[in-house]
């Protein structure tokens, strides 16, 4: 087991991974996952978030939900950096299979306090094999 990382207080820090695998609308999974991630962030856990399969559509730029009468919650992903969530993994094969690239996704950034608040990208493109290795490192994996 890894030593607890940068968690504050006396609490236990665990490695949580949230897997997002479904399209953003049509089911409530994407929104529920986002809410759970934001709640977990309040408990200062070591969080990573994955977008794979149809989940990559959750980060698409320029979402317009007017026609389906649902709230467009995609702007909230840009707040993840404020919540110190900057390990966001996008599965390369999922993007390619859908004819997408990172340019089709909204840019997510965080500010590095230890580097003069420089803005850095939170998005990490990983292959299926790398993702499998990342999953194996986690204490807890939740799939949505």
């Amino acid at each position, binding site marked *: 087991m890894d030593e607890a990382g940068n968690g504050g207080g006396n609490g236990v820090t665990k490695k949580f991974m949230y897997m997002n695998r479904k399209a953003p609308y049509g089911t409530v999974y994407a929104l529920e996952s986002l809410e759970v991630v*934001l*709640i977990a962030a*309040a408990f200062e856990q070591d969080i990573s978030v994955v977008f794979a399969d149809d989940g990559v559509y959750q980060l698409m730029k320029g979402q317009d939900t007017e026609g389906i009468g649902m709230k*467009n919650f995609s*702007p909230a992903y*840009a*707040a993840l950096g*404020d*919540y110190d969530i900057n390990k966001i993994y996008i599965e390369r094969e999922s993007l390619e299979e859908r004819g997408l690239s990172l340019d089709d996704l909204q840019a997510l950034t965080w500010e590095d306090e230890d580097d003069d608040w420089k803005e850095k990208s939170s998005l990490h493109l990983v292959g299926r094999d790398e993702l499998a290795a990342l999953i194996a490192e986690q204490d807890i994996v939740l799939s949505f």
Partner: protein
Amino acid sequence: MPLQIDGKTYETDEEGYLANLGDWTPELATAMATADGAELEDNHWEVINFLREYYEEYQIAPAVRVLTKAIGKKLGKDKGNSKYLYELFPYGPAKQACKYAGLPKPTGCV
């Protein structure tokens, strides 16, 4: 319980948060504060307006830790700390200020 101000009725949830963001006016904020026995001054409005701008951009109400950090960045270190924010909003800065700002209760709010 619906909120009644100047002969108009506004829907709220069971904790007093506005049901429709679009209903919000500064007068409503003042009325909600008065009902809690609080008075809103410039320092309160600074936070309330900040929250409304944050919601406009991200479509979520920030958790208190995020709010504290962001306020510090925007308004200075002397305001970006929980002591200052709890003095302004003793029921919890995220919770109480979000209510007056017409936002939903913050996700993961404590």
